[in-house]
């Protein structure tokens, strides 16, 4: 953040920034955002995930790495699939896991969140997996937890969804290997997407050749280029010669906010069909964080077609989350020896 400050002389403070998620040795102790992490850290996560991906194939799908640790899934926003994969990841690492779904309405005041955290801390937990509708919620909690507790961001507002981005990178790597040759196009609601922000940061950190976003202007942040992407307004040019297509889920409420006229028109302009997929390279892979709106973001034929790796993403999600849990609990103040 310091580097982008063109007139630091008149500024009063140095931003505390990404150091929050790293310990003194520069290792992950929280996992809050891809922003600010090194290429080595991202590769490390993928390598550890790879070592865990065999666990699910064993008769006993468990390793004793986090035995005796207590993990709390702290979900202030509804989620089924993300929560389930964190749940499974924790169980396969032999940790104890508690699922808490806290309706946001009960915690509109910040002190309630802090109260929740304090209470759970008093029960000697080791990790919070946090989802919240406010951007910055995971940072806020990480700033206030006791030093031995790790925080994993399972999605905060429009800001970040770093485990989703890492499972996507892991999936891309397993098919395409070398990021430096890849052109990647992300289609859809970039403005409201925490997934897109984390994916863009991860792809750029891993050295992807080109990252494109394809969307109408109403679904783009005001300064999209500053994210390190090329902006395209249509699929024909945007998909030309790409190796990876990532679709984003379109939320119904976008129509209400005068951002789009209709799902129908969105599909007309940005929906992925087999015909349009032909603009891309023949061996292109198609990804989607789920859940899919068939007939809105993409045709069923594409979702279920030979280029789709959507179900592999789901499978990889567990190994990647195991990796992040193991790494952060391994690097925090107390370690994970049990």
């Amino acid at each position, binding site marked *: *953040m310091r580097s*982008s*400050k*063109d*007139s630091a002389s*008149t*500024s*009063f*403070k140095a*931003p*505390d*920034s*990404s150091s*929050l998620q790293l310990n003194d040795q520069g290792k992950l102790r929280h996992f809050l955002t891809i*922003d600010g992490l090194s290429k080595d850290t991202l590769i490390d996560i993928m390598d550890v995930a790879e070592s865990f991906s065999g666990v699910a194939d064993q008769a006993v799908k468990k390793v004793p790495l986090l035995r005796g640790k207590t993990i709390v899934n702290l979900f202030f926003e509804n989620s089924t699939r993300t929560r389930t994969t964190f749940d499974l990841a924790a169980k396969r690492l032999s940790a104890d896991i508690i699922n808490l779904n806290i309706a946001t309405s009960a915690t*509109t*005041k*910040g*002190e309630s*969140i*802090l109260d929740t955290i304090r209470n759970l801390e008093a029960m000697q937990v080791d990790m919070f997996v946090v989802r*919240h509708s*406010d*951007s*910055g*919620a995971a*940072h*806020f909690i990480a700033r206030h937890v006791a030093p031995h507790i790790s925080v994993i961001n399972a999605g*905060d*507002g*429009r*800001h*970040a969804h770093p485990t989703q981005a890492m499972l996507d990178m892991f999936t891309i790597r397993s098919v395409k290997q070398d990021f430096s040759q890849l052109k990647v196009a992300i289609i859809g609601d970039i403005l409201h997407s*925490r997934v897109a*922000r984390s994916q863009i940061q991860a792809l750029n950190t891993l050295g992807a050749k080109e990252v494109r976003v394809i969307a109408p202007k109403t679904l783009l*942040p*005001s*300064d*999209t280029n*500053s*994210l390190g992407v090329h902006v395209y307004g249509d699929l024909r040019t945007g998909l030309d010669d790409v190796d990876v297509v990532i679709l984003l889920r379109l939320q119904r409420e976008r129509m209400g906010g005068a951002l789009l006229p209709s799902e129908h028109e969105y599909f007309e302009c940005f929906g992925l069909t087999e015909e349009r997929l032909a603009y891309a390279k023949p061996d292109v892979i198609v990804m989607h964080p789920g859940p899919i709106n068939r007939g809105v973001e993409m045709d069923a034929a594409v979702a279920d077609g030979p280029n789709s790796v959507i179900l592999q993403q789901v499978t990889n999600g567990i190994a990647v989350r195991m990796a992040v849990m193991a790494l952060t609990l391994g690097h925090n103040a107390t370690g994970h020896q049990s």
Partner: protein
Amino acid sequence: MNICIKNGRVIDPANERDGVQNVYIGEGKIQSIGRSPNGFVAKLTIDATDKLVMPGFIDLNASLREPGYEQKASIKTETRAAVAAGYTAVCCLPNTKPVLDTPAVVQLILDKADLAGYAKVLPLGALTIGLEGSTLSEMYALKRAGCVAVSQAPNNNISSQVLRRALQYASSHDLLVVLKPEDVAIKDDGCVHDGAMSSRLGLSGIPVSAETVAIAKIIVLAQETGARVHLTGISSADAITMLTRAQFDNIAISADVHAYQLHLTELDVGTFDANYHTSPPLRTCADRDALRAAVVEGVVSVSSGHQPHEEAAKQAPFPSTEAGISGLQTVLPLMLRFVDEGLLGLSQMVDRLATGPATILGLDLGNLTKHSAANICIVDPDKTWQVDEKNWLSRGLNTPFLGLQMKGQVTHTIVNGRVVFKK
């Protein structure tokens, strides 16, 4: 009580005065500057050698939180913070609970301020009942009760039609209208400037157009109705361009910027630091530089934008925190820093903080004219102090400058000839 302020550098742009002189105060008024009046015997002599002697500052935009939000602050705590910051008069916004829309609330605020005995409070009455933007307040009654202007701040939640009529009505009572230019529909749920940082952090952005669309409307209506309008807390380069043009066209419109806007930008939001959640938002370096130029050129005055909060108001994820900085006590050091950078003269600084605001309000304040009320602050410009709980008098510790060294310490503040602050 007769007071003599000796050997200070007296800076009084209203009288084009800047030099080392003695100031003689008696019967609450300035008796003389320079030569001692006949038979004057000082009961108190203040040695102001190497210090600045200036008219007390006048804040155009502060929320004092009383009545209604005493968990955040009170008139007593904030007027005390004000005098410690060199302010002798503070305009309070009408966003109290109940809203400052009746003479009874005006009286309550004036009584509380009198009782506290620190800075004068200049109430800004609500432009519409409950600040709801639908029914005009009894502006004449508010004026008689002591309001110096009427205002829809801190919101601009008002339709074009009601705003137009409110300006017409206010101008028929010769009342200044203070507006915060913000189109609430464009602002929507925005919490930071719509730009690189909002894109990166995934925070809802407030586009510059939220400010400029409102200003365009206000300028047109001010011209049509002939109302005197003051825009408080403008934040963008485009707003400065529009304002300059309107002033060139002789439209009766003035403006202020909050002092912190001259130093901070959107980049300072860093990683969701809620102390940088401000309203209006911190904008780009180019915007900040345009605001600085406007202060230098005298296009705008400088206000504190004081919004003290209790700790819990900032203890939440960024978008859920309340906007605002407890600004009073850092205005002077921020302005002196600006002076130190060689961009602004001390006399200009006093104009933007005292003389200019007094002119905007049409009050005989902000000057050291003979026989005027003695409202004075004395400042040691080289003394440094740290922003910490010990030195902080506002009840709201919500400042992004916490822990930092500030240069410029008020040593004495005099209101109506009475020393109300001394350090």
